[in-house]
């Protein structure tokens, strides 16, 4: 069972197999992809925190139609989002803005990961002595 015992062999197999998963059997069309993405980040106007992808309220269905039409017509993501914000306010987006104050929402998780790595490395170095 030397073969099974080998870590390196297993690692190689794992990388290949997991890599295969990126070779998708059917690609979603760009229109579908963009529509799905936008629908998941736009809030259903009449709901508390549900995206239009998840809700079947009339306003959500109407916004989904609108997004699809706009994507097919070639508008960019930011244009679509801006037009929705112009009517429903900035809280229509489920994802907070990435510029300005919103950057702390992404910096803090990264800082925590960095802190964690530092702590674990310090323990390793302390032991090397």
């Amino acid at each position, binding site marked *: 069972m030397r073969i099974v015992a080998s870590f390196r062999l297993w690692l190689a197999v*794992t990388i290949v197999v997991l890599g295969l998963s990126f070779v998708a059997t059917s690609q979603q069309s760009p229109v579908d992809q963009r529509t799905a993405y936008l629908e998941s980040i736009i809030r259903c106007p009449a709901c*508390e925190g549900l*995206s239009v992808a998840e809700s079947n309220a009339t306003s959500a269905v109407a916004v989904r139609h609108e997004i699809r039409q706009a994507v097919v017509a070639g508008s960019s993501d930011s244009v679509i989002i801006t037009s929705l914000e112009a009517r429903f306010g900035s809280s229509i987006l*489920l994802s907070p803005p990435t510029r300005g104050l919103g950057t702390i929402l992404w910096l803090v998780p990264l800082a925590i990961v960095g802190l964690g790595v530092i702590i674990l490395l310090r323990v390793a170095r302390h032991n090397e002595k």
Partner: protein
Amino acid sequence: MTLSWLGHATILFTLISLVLGALDLLVSLRRRSLAHSRWFAGGALLGILSSVGVMEFALVSHNFSLAYVAENNSRFTPLVYSITGMWSALEGSILLWSLLLIFCLVAVVIRYRREASDDVVRWATTIVFAVAAYFLGLMAGPADPFVATVGTTSSGAGPNALLQDNPLVAIHPPLLYLGFVGFTIPFAFAVAMLITGRVRDRWPLELRRWTVLSWGALTLGIVLGAWWSYQVLGWGGFWGWDPVENASLLPWLTGTAYIHSVIVQDRRGLFRVWNLSLALVTFALTILGTFFTRSGVLQSVHAFSSSSLGPLLMGFFVLTIGGGAALVTWRGDELRSPVGVDHPLSREGVFVANNIIFVGFAVVVLLGTAFPLLYEAINGGQVTVGTPYFATVAAPAAVVVLALMALAPAMSWRRSTWPVIWSRLRTSAWVAIATVFFLELAGVRHAVALAGYFLAIIAAGSALRTLSGLVRSARRKQRTPWSVLLGPTAGGMIVHLGVVILSVGIVSSTSFVTRGEVTLATGQSTVVAGQTLTFNGFAVVSDAVKNATELKVVVNRSQQLRPAITTFRGREGQTVGTPAIDSNFWRDVYVTFDAVGGKGSTSGAQVANNLPAGSVVLGVTVEPQLSWLWIGGIVIALGSAVTFFRRREVAPA
């Protein structure tokens, strides 16, 4: 003597018993004399049971002389929902909280009655008395449940529609509150240990057992809450990253961190200061959770109506954090252990990583929840922080947690070498990659889901390996397997298995969900994600409480479902959609009544004017392995119950 007067009297009596109980203990600490805790705790128990009795009597007999009953009950509310009406609004929910807290107080007094003269016990009991007195004080003042009705009401408004169409309203709040309230006891003991300086001997173990008990109740409470949301809210989801949901998650996260790092303290005496701090913080987070639910500063489907309680609750939170920090600073130096973590590749190292992830994730969730308020204060506009953000942050954290669960049981204490770890995980690792390969052959190509399954299988394998190791060592010593399977190590591994099942459920149901709207005429069928749905017509159901228009839907020609639009009688006549679910081990089919064709009906459903009459629009969601979430939750609860059995002898690890 009106009910209102009686209710107020019982609250006052309970409050006085609690205050006197705390004072009596303080006096006994000073004078080194005996305290009379059992009398004051008994008095408080009598008082709160009477308060609850008055409220339940009023609810069950539909006595509208109490304003609370007039707003949350009606003449035709069924018995079950009258009883649960006690916690369906703000003031009553505090009554439930106080009831459970006083149960905990009595539990503490009874459990340590033989050590009642021990200072740690005395200080801890004082703290529990004080916290209970605080909540009673809230009910005596700003959150009074026994306000009398002004004027006359012939029939009450009835409970909120969503609180009377599912029996889980009878189980989820009490269990969830038990989880929250339970953390008061570890907190009280942590404070007592810091004040007396007695941070060794048996107290850390006691603290740990109370924490596991509360953690188990909280986990089950949260899972049941997710199940309830799933059944009634109509979108097939179970977690919305809503502010109140997040608030209930925070103490769970720090509680999980605590449960793991205290194992290291047990084994090697490390992390004492950190663990005591975690115990203090976990309780403080339960108060923060109460604040988010009751202050009204954040909009939420789960929040009670806002009140003046916000500043009061926040004041208590600040007091807890400030006081706790002061205590830890004072005693911190005495607690430090002379040794440290030897090497990151060790069981201690993995637990450090565990703590970083869980506490770090709690910080991120807190930040995300409070962010809209920060943004409004600084920039003036409104933003929403919703699922896209939290899911993006949670996914990598979950992957790391699964990996840690896979590695930790295979690691030795103090230092592990990779060949040893690999030899222990080999079998699970090969099984995992083989499973992924076969899934890929079957057409599954979702990278994140496959990574999730891969790690989940190794984690499960790791836990099973530990369990089988325990059984083998029991056989060698000629003992029954049960003597080792009922104990903390086995319990912990069972909890891990439950987490794996739950994770697989979450991964499958979110990665491979199919959502759609189908239009069906009477008698027509359609297929969604391999499931056949047939619409067979309407049915109208009417009883004293509600009036519902149901749709007769058949799934796969055998399962009968009745999604409906229900209107509850009462002053406001609320109309809600009632989803119908066909659930089995492999998938859930979730059906909602979205719209009806033609010129409309009296059902209250949305109307699609361009469809022929007699046809309906159904919302259909098919989620694979969704029931695994609930199964996983039950296994976790069972596992934490199992940890309570003490091992007859300490088995070598």
